[in-house]
């Protein structure tokens, strides 16, 4: 823990949290999903990833922890290059949350789910339990340990889904469309949660109000390529640009 904290400032100043270098990827059926994507995200930055359906957002996020391997180019998380032999390390660094919480929450109880990551990182039992308590507190779901996912609302499930990766204490959070399907109140809660977390974030979304509130920087992805990468204010005030990519004004 102590070593952890000592290392952090160094990362802030020298190494970007995420470095994508000329990343290209095609699915086995030949469909090209990413083409020469180069992006650098500094430690602590919160970045939104937008673009029409099929633009390659999910595909990009799946590269961050090596679930998909780059066909060409490279992915670095902090100072670790994502390769077959660094997967364990990378997966401890990157917390990936999937769009459908029913995919993310595969255990019968909330406790089991939030404990899954720490357990499989090989942590000791006491540490696992402590992390579960801490992670649930972070997302405001303390006391839900014994609940079952199918007895909870979508909003609650999304929060727990975030807790399942927070318990691994990742340096990078990658969320896929976290606000999809939420009612206004649950959405508000999500905005507060994302604002309160200090990790580096790359979040794919169609929710322009969420972007305006949480993310200072926005990347527009189109046809597997980075079309624009700019401060959110700049993008949101460019009406022509928003229209070109089918994005709504917040």
């Amino acid at each position, binding site marked *: 823990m102590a070593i952890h904290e000592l290392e952090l400032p160094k990362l802030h100043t020298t190494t970007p949290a995420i470095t994508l270098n000329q990343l290209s990827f095609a699915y086995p059926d030949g469909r090209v999903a990413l083409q020469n994507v180069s992006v650098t995200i500094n430690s602590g930055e919160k970045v939104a990833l937008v673009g029409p359906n099929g633009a390659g957002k999910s595909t990009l996020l799946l590269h961050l922890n090596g*679930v998909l391997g780059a066909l060409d180019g490279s992915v670095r998380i902090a100072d670790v290059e994502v390769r077959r032999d660094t997967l*364990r390390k990378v*997966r*401890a660094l990157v917390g990936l949350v*999937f769009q459908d919480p029913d995919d993310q929450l*595969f255990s019968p109880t909330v406790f089991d789910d939030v404990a899954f*990551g720490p357990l499989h990182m090989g942590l000791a039992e006491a540490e696992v339990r402590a992390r579960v308590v801490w992670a649930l507190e972070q997302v405001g779901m303390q006391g839900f340990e014994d609940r079952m*996912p199918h007895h909870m609302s979508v909003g609650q499930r999304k929060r727990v889904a975030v807790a399942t*990766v927070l318990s*691994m204490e990742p340096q990078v959070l990658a969320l896929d469309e976290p606000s999809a399907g939420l009612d206004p109140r649950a959405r508000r809660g999500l905005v507060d949660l994302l604002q309160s977390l200090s990790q580096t974030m790359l979040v794919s979304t169609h929710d322009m109000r969420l972007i305006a509130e949480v993310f200072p920087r926005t990347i527009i992805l189109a046809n597997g390529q980075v079309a624009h990468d700019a401060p959110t204010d700049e993008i949101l005030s460019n009406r022509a640009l928003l229209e070109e990519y089918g994005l709504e004004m917040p």
Partner: protein
Amino acid sequence: MAQQLLDRYIAGSSVIHALDARVKLVLTIALIVCASLLPVGAWLALTAFTALVWAAIIASGVGLPTILRRSLLALPFLLVVVTVIFSVPGRPIFRLPLGFVTLTATDAGLLRFITIVWKSWISMQAALLLTATTHFLDVLRALQALHMPKIIVALMSFMYRYLFILVEEAQRLLRARDCRSAALQGSGGGSLLWRAQVTGRLVGTLFLRSFERSERIYVAMLSRGYTGELRSLRAQTLDRRDLRVGLVVGAILLIITAQAFVG
């Protein structure tokens, strides 16, 4: 809706509910094994088992009628056993002419039939009591604590987790089908062939969706450090009192069973 269908647990705070799931599971299995070992016509032992199980059901507060009603579900399966009445050699008691064959019921066959039905029925009730007083997840944990292979426990827990989602998905598909086939329903529900086709497509869709979901779940597991070996926290140590209850009831089961062989 799916909930009621799948959850057999009846919440409560009785001594039976509070008893450690591992003890309950072992005792239930012990009772089923003991009952199945009993020789034909061990009426005293069967009566004693029945008394024991009913006492536990009454103590649990889930209600004897509830358990008995649920146990009726097993009745159709018992019909299969009817054949022993006619197939075991013994003194004939009545004949059943069925066209060109005549079945002869024997006394030995009848005794065996009654023994088998009683054994199954009491085993069924014990299992129903277990599921009514123990949450399914506690049963799973108990199985794990008793060294059931991890992969099987994991499969059962996935099944429990996703059965609800699967049922909901199926209901959504059914509703969508009903919406589109309103006109046909009005004119008699369509031909059998048409309905078979629709149902086939429904099952296919459901299978594909489940398959896709399983891939996504696997990716989610990989993302959180799964490398092919499932880990779990150690089980809590067994409470001294629960252990004692288990040993005493276990001893009673053994004595009843032994008595049937000696007596």
